[in-house]
C-alpha cells in the first residue's frame, strides 16, 4: 500500500508541509517570542524608572513636610518656649497628616528634645540618630534612604522595631546565609536644620519605615501596571530590598502572603548590590520567572544598601509564545490535512488513467481487443494511452489479417477435401463406362475389314479416350493424397535434384534456369517424393509461363512464417520472368481444376495437389505476381513439425 503512487505523493506533500511548517514553527515561534521578550524587557526597564520616581517623590514629600513644619508658627513658638509637650503634639499632628512613622527634634548638642511615639520625651541618652547627626554636621537639609538599627528604632518606638524585625524565609536560588532574622530597618527619611535668626537651633527629622510598608510598592503596582490581573495574579510587581532581603513587596508567596523575608537570587544580588549595575532580564523571583529590572538604592551616605525592583510575570509572555506556537501547530496540521487532501486528489487524477490502462490491458489479455481506455490525458500518461491505442489498433489489424488468412486456408482445405471426395467418386464411376469404350474401340480397331476412314475415326476415339483416362487418373491422384512418408532431408539437395530434372527442358526452350542454395539450412523432415513433385510442378509451371530468353531462379532461405508467427522454417522460392498471373486468377490458383493452360495441356490439378501436400507438411504455399513482370512462388516449410491432424485428408 505504501508503494502506491498515491501514498508516495501524499507522503511527499506531507513531508513538504511538515518541513515548511516545522521551520516556521521553530523560527517564527522563537523570533516572535524573542521580540515579545525584548519588548517586555524594555518596558520593565521604563517601569523601573517610573517606580524610582515614585520612590523619590515620596522622599521629596517627606522633606517638604518637615520643611514646612520647621517654619510653622506653632512649632516655632513651642520651640522658643521650650514647651516640649506642645511641640510633640504638633509633631504628632504633622506625622499623622504626612503619614510619617517617626519624627522628632534634636538639639544642637545632639540631644533628642522630643519625638512622636510612646517615648516622646526621652530621659538620658538616646541611640545615635544617623540622619539627624548628618544634618548636625552639615547644617543643611538631608533626605533619602537610611538604614536604621534596632536600637534606634526601639528607642523611637518599640512598635517600629517590631515592624522592622523580619524573619528570613528560605528561597530557591537565594544567597545562603547564617542569620535568621533582620532587625534593622530601611527608611525613607529627611532632616532639616532649624535656624533662628542665623542661629542653628537643632534638627527636625522624620521618615517612613519601609519594612512591611505597602505604600510604595502597591502604588507602583497600581499606577505603573494599573493592577493588571493575569490568572488571578498581578502581572506587575514591585519590591524594595534591604540588602538582598525583601522588606516591602507585593510579590506573593505560594500561600498568597507577601513574600517579605525572602531573599533575591545570588546572581542578581551580585550584579546589582555588589557591582552597582542595573539588571534587566528574566529572573527567578520567589517562585516564578519574571521579566525584571533591578537597580541599587543608595543611602544618604552614598552606600548601596538595597535594591528597587519591578517585574512582570513571564507567564503572560510565555502564553503569547504558546498562543503563537499553537497557531503555528494549527497551521501545520491544516497544511498536513490539505497536503493529504491535495495528494489524494492529484494521485487519483494521475492514477485513474493508469488504472484504466491496467484494466484495459487485462481485458486485452482476456481477448477483448477494444477495451475502454477513458479520456486521453494531457500529461505524459496521454502519450502512453495513445501508444496503447495504436498498439491495440495494430493488434486488431493483425488479428483481422490472421483471421482472413486462416479463413482462406480453411476454405481452401474444405474445397480440397470435398473436391477430393468428389474426384474419387467420379473417377470410380467414370472408369467403368470408360472400360467399355476402351474395350470396344480397340476391339473394333483389331478388325481388318474396316475402311480406312472408319479406322481413322476409331483412332481418334481411342486417342481421346486415352486423354479422358489421363484426366481421370489426375483426378484420382488428387483425391488419393496419400500419407506422408517422411525422413530428414537436405532441402538444398532435394531442390538441386529437382532443378536438374528440368534443366534439359529449360535448355531446349532457351530459358536460363539457376539455383541459388541458401546457407545454414537445417534438415527438414519431409516426404521427398511428394515434395519433389510439388517443386517440379512449380518449376514446370514457371517454365511454361516464361518465354525463351527469360530466366527462372530457384533459391532457398531460412524463413520465418507469416501465418504462424515466430515459427522457424525454411523457404523455397521460384522466381520467373514470365507472363505473370492476372490478379483475378491469383485467388483461384490453388483451386482444383483451375487452369489457364490450353485444353489438353493440363488437368488443373497440379497446384491444387501441391497445395495439399505442402499443407500436410504444416507449411504454406504462397504466390506473388505482376502481369508482364513474372511470378514468385514461395513454399514455406516448418523445421519443427507440429502435430497436424489432417495428414490423411483426401485419402481413401
Amino acid at each position, binding site marked *: 500500500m505504501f508503494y502506491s503512487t498515491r501514498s508516495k505523493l501524499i507522503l511527499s506533500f506531507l513531508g513538504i508541509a511538515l518541513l515548511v511548517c516545522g521551520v516556521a514553527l521553530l523560527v517564527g515561534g522563537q523570533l516572535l517570542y524573542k521580540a515579545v521578550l525584548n519588548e517586555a524587557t524594555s518596558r520593565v526597564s521604563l517601569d523601573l524608572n517610573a517606580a524610582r520616581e515614585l520612590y523619590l517623590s515620596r522622599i521629596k514629600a517627606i522633606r517638604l513636610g518637615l520643611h514646612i513644619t520647621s517654619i510653622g508658627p506653632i512649632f516655632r513658638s513651642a520651640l522658643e518656649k521650650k514647651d516640649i509637650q506642645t511641640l510633640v503634639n504638633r509633631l504628632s499632628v504633622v506625622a499623622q497628616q504626612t503619614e510619617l512613622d517617626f519624627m522628632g527634634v534634636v538639639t544642637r548638642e545632639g540631644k533628642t528634645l522630643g519625638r512622636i511615639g510612646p517615648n516622646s520625651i526621652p530621659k538620658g541618652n538616646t541611640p545615635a540618630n544617623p540622619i539627624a547627626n548628618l544634618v548636625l554636621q552639615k547644617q543643611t537639609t538631608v533626605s533619602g534612604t537610611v538604614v536604621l538599627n534596632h536600637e534606634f528604632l526601639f528607642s523611637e518606638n518599640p512598635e517600629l522595631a517590631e515592624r522592622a524585625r523580619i524573619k528570613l524565609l528560605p528561597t530557591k536560588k537565594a544567597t545562603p546565609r547564617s542569620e535568621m532574622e533582620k532587625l534593622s530597618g530601611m527608611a525613607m527619611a529627611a532632616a532639616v536644620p532649624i535656624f533662628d535668626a542665623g542661629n542653628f537651633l537643632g534638627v527636625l527629622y522624620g521618615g517612613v519605615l519601609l519594612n512591611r510598608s505597602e505604600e510604595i510598592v502597591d502604588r507602583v503596582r497600581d499606577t505603573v501596571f494599573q493592577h493588571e490581573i493575569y490568572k488571578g495574579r498581578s502581572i506587575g510587581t514591585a519590591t524594595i530590598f534591604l540588602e538582598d532581603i525583601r522588606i516591602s513587596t507585593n510579590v506573593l508567596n505560594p500561600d498568597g502572603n507577601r513574600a517579605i523575608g525572602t531573599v533575591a537570587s545570588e546572581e542578581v544580588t551580585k550584579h546589582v548590590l555588589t557591582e552597582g549595575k542595573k539588571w534587566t532580564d528574566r529572573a527567578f523571583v520567589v517562585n516564578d520567572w519574571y521579566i525584571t529590572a533591578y537597580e541599587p538604592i543608595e543611602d544618604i551616605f552614598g552606600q548601596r544598601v538595597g535594591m528597587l525592583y519591578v517585574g512582570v510575570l513571564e507567564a503572560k509572555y510565555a502564553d503569547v509564545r504558546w498562543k503563537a506556537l499553537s497557531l503555528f501547530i494549527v497551521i501545520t496540521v491544516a497544511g498536513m490535512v490539505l497536503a493529504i487532501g491535495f495528494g489524494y486528489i492529484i494521485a487519483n487524477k494521475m492514477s485513474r488513467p493508469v488504472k484504466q490502462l491496467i484494466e484495459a490491458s487485462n481485458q486485452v489479455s482476456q481477448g477483448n481487443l477494444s477495451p475502454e481506455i477513458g479520456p486521453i490525458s494531457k500529461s505524459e500518461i496521454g502519450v502512453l494511452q495513445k501508444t496503447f491505442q495504436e498498439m491495440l489498433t495494430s493488434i486488431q489489424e493483425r488479428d483481422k489479417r490472421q483471421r482472413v488468412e486462416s479463413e482462406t486456408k480453411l476454405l481452401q482445405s474444405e474445397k480440397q477435401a470435398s473436391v477430393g471426395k468428389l474426384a474419387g467418386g467420379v473417377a470410380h464411376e467414370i472408369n467403368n463406362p470408360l*472400360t467399355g469404350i476402351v474395350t470396344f474401340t480397340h*476391339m473394333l480397331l483389331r478388325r481388318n475389314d474396316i475402311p480406312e476412314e472408319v479406322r481413322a475415326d476409331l483412332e481418334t476415339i481411342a486417342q481421346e479416350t486415352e486423354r479422358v483416362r489421363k484426366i481421370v487418373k489426375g483426378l484420382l491422384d488428387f483425391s*488419393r493424397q496419400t500419407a506422408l512418408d517422411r525422413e530428414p532431408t537436405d532441402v538444398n539437395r532435394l531442390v538441386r535434384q529437382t532443378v536438374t530434372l528440368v534443366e534439359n527442358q529449360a535448355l531446349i526452350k532457351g530459358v536460363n534456369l539457376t539455383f541459388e542454395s541458401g546457407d545454414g539450412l537445417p534438415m527438414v523432415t519431409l516426404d521427398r517424393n511428394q515434395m519433389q513433385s510439388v517443386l517440379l510442378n512449380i518449376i514446370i509451371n514457371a517454365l511454361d509461363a516464361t518465354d525463351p530468353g527469360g530466366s527462372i531462379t530457384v533459391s532457398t532461405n531460412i524463413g520465418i512464417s507469416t501465418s504462424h508467427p515466430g515459427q522457424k522454417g525454411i523457404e523455397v522460392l521460384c522466381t520467373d520472368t514470365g507472363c505473370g498471373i492476372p490478379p483475378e486468377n491469383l485467388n483461384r490458383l490453388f483451386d482444383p481444376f483451375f487452369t489457364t493452360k490450353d485444353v489438353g495441356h493440363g488437368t488443373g490439378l497440379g497446384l491444387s495437389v501441391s497445395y495439399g501436400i505442402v499443407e500436410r507438411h504444416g507449411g504454406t504455399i504462397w504466390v506473388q505476381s505482376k502481369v508482364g513482370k513474372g511470378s514468385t512462388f514461395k513454399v514455406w516449410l516448418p523445421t519443427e513439425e507440429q502435430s497436424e491432424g489432417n495428414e490423411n485428408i483426401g485419402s481413401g
Partner: protein
Amino acid sequence: MKILVVDDDAIVIKSCRRILEAEGFEVTTVPSADEALEKVKYYDFNLLLMDVKMPKHDGIFLMREIKKNWPGIPIIVMSGYPTPETIGGVLKLGATQFIAKPFRPDELTKVVRQVLEKAIQKDSFPTGAGG
C-alpha cells in the same frame, strides 16, 4: 480355360467377355459376390476376375471366401480406384494380380495370360497333385 468374371457393372462384364472370348477363353459372368460363390461351388474355374467395390458383399469378402475354400484359384482384382492402399490391400489378401480400370484389351489379355501361365506352372509341378 474357364474364367469367372464378377462385376456389378454390366458394361465391365460385357467388355471382359468380349475381350476374353476373343482370345478363346470360356467366360462365365456374375453381377455379385454371392452368385460368384454359388458358381464356384458347382463349376471349376481356372481364373477369377473380380471387381472390388460391389453392393452387398464386396470383392474383399469374396476373395476371403475363395481363398478359404478354394485356395487354388488365382484371382485378378480390377478396380476403378487404383490407390496404393487398394492395390496393396488386395495383394496382401491373396490376389495374384491387380489391374486398373480402364484397361485396353491387350493389357487385360496380357495380365490374364501371365496369371494363367503361372498357375499352370504351379499345377505342372505339384508335390501332391490336386484337381
